[in-house]
């Protein structure tokens, strides 16, 4: 029992252990909720409230991603608290400005720059998830486990451009 508590309180698990936990959550999501895990869809449902204010007749925000407190939105609330719980359990919880040592070495140490890139990158990520029909969790993992070809096309594209982007940002230090 103390062994188990000690394992849970570790800041970083083996990716295999954490992956197995997510796998079990993936099974339970299908069994209990008859749904899939996802992150980007929830954001789009919330964004639809603003989207409909600007353009009430918009097809995407009326039919594809309607403005509503849907299951993915509630899931996101859980993810927020789950991440917080994870940090609390390892005693690493703190309010921070998304600082990261490696980031500072690559981009410089200004916080505003981090936030700007995060914001713009977030727009890119969410836009791309809209085109592809899901993100890393909703399409790559959830689609992959159902053997949807879409998931593997997405993973291929994601890694190809991700590696190239990292190569551009890091240059010789790649």
């Amino acid at each position, binding site marked *: 029992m103390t062994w188990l508590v000690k394992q849970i309180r570790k800041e970083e698990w083996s990716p*295999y252990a954490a992956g197995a936990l997510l796998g079990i959550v993936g099974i339970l999501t299908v069994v209990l909720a008859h749904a899939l895990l996802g992150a980007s869809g929830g954001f789009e449902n919330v964004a639809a409230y603003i989207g409909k204010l600007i353009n009430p007749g918009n097809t995407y925000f009326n039919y594809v991603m309607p403005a509503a407190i849907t299951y993915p939105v509630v899931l996101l609330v859980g993810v927020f608290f789950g991440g917080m719980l994870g940090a609390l359990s390892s005693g690493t919880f703190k309010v921070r400005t998304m600082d990261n040592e490696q980031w500072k070495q690559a981009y410089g140490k200004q916080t505003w720059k981090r936030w700007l890139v995060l914001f713009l*990158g977030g727009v890119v990520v969410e836009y791309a998830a809209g085109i592809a029909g899901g993100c890393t969790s909703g399409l790559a*993992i959830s689609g992959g486990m*159902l053997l949807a070809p879409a998931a593997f*096309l997405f993973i291929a594209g994601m890694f190809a451009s991700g590696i190239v982007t990292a190569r551009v940002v890091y240059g010789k230090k790649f």
Partner: protein
Amino acid sequence: MTYVIAIVLGVFFGFSLNKAGLTKYHKVVNQFRLTDMAVLKFMMTALVVTMLGLYPLRAMGLIVFPTVPATYIVGNLLGGLIFGVGMSLTGT
């Protein structure tokens, strides 16, 4: 009730992401620099574990799969290509 289930599932989802270190910039970007394979190990383990649970359950007739994400080759691939840029820049 559905909301309670969604919250609980979300909590474990977020918890596993946190413990895998995927909430950290360097974890994600180092996957793309190919210096830290944690993200791929995490994703693939989750995939395999879920498959091991879901396919036997379906074979026994206990569950029906939810709607499979739609495949439209150009969109999936193009979306993935744009997604990778944002993911690599922000490390999220």
